[in-house]
């Protein structure tokens, strides 16, 4: 299902090398990474081919209490 391609990749992949960072996924690749959402979103905006990228933060490896 094309609309979920990046989401499927996100759920199946370990991104521990990016912990603490924001990343943008396009198809099955990390195409942009940075220290904040804004930084990554603005970099994605400079590349029209990545307009459908999925942006997420990779958490530190510790338990969370929201």
């Amino acid at each position, binding site marked *: 299902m094309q609309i979920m391609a990046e*989401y499927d990749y996100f759920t199946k992949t*370990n991104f*521990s090398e990016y912990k603490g960072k924001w990343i943008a996924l396009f198809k099955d690749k990390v195409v942009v990474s940075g220290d904040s959402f*804004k930084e990554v979103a603005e970099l994605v905006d400079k590349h029209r081919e990545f307009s459908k990228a999925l942006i997420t933060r990779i958490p530190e*490896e510790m338990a969370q*209490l*929201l």
Partner: protein
Amino acid sequence: MTDYKFKFKREWIDLGWALRPKIKVTLSANGKSKQIIAIIDTGSDLVYIPKDMADYFGLSLSKNELTGQGAETEFSYRTSQIRVSLENPHKIFRKLVEVMVPAKGADHKDVILGTGFLENFIVTLDYKNEKINLRAHQSTSEKKQ
């Protein structure tokens, strides 16, 4: 009824694997749109977005600063509105929702989907099978063009 299906995300923590209810949503405001990962939190009242995300979308924030209760400490926040969308191959759910944007004392970095968004769905969190389903009523989803 329209179903929007997702999976839990397995993330490694000190104690082993944690199952986190992370779903894909699209946030839109002021002509900008981004697909992002958000975490479902049935214990939160509203939708929370980090300050730099509000800045990116150019959201106008409320003048009044309110006080919220976080997991450990109180924090100040302002409110705004952003459009949140879900999609499956046939339907799109779109809703303008109120969001809390931290002003002081909160540094949570994830987008949190609380009751202000989840109240539109029957939410199923199937930890055993690692599946998430958000079931929207027919009238709230639009057919894809």
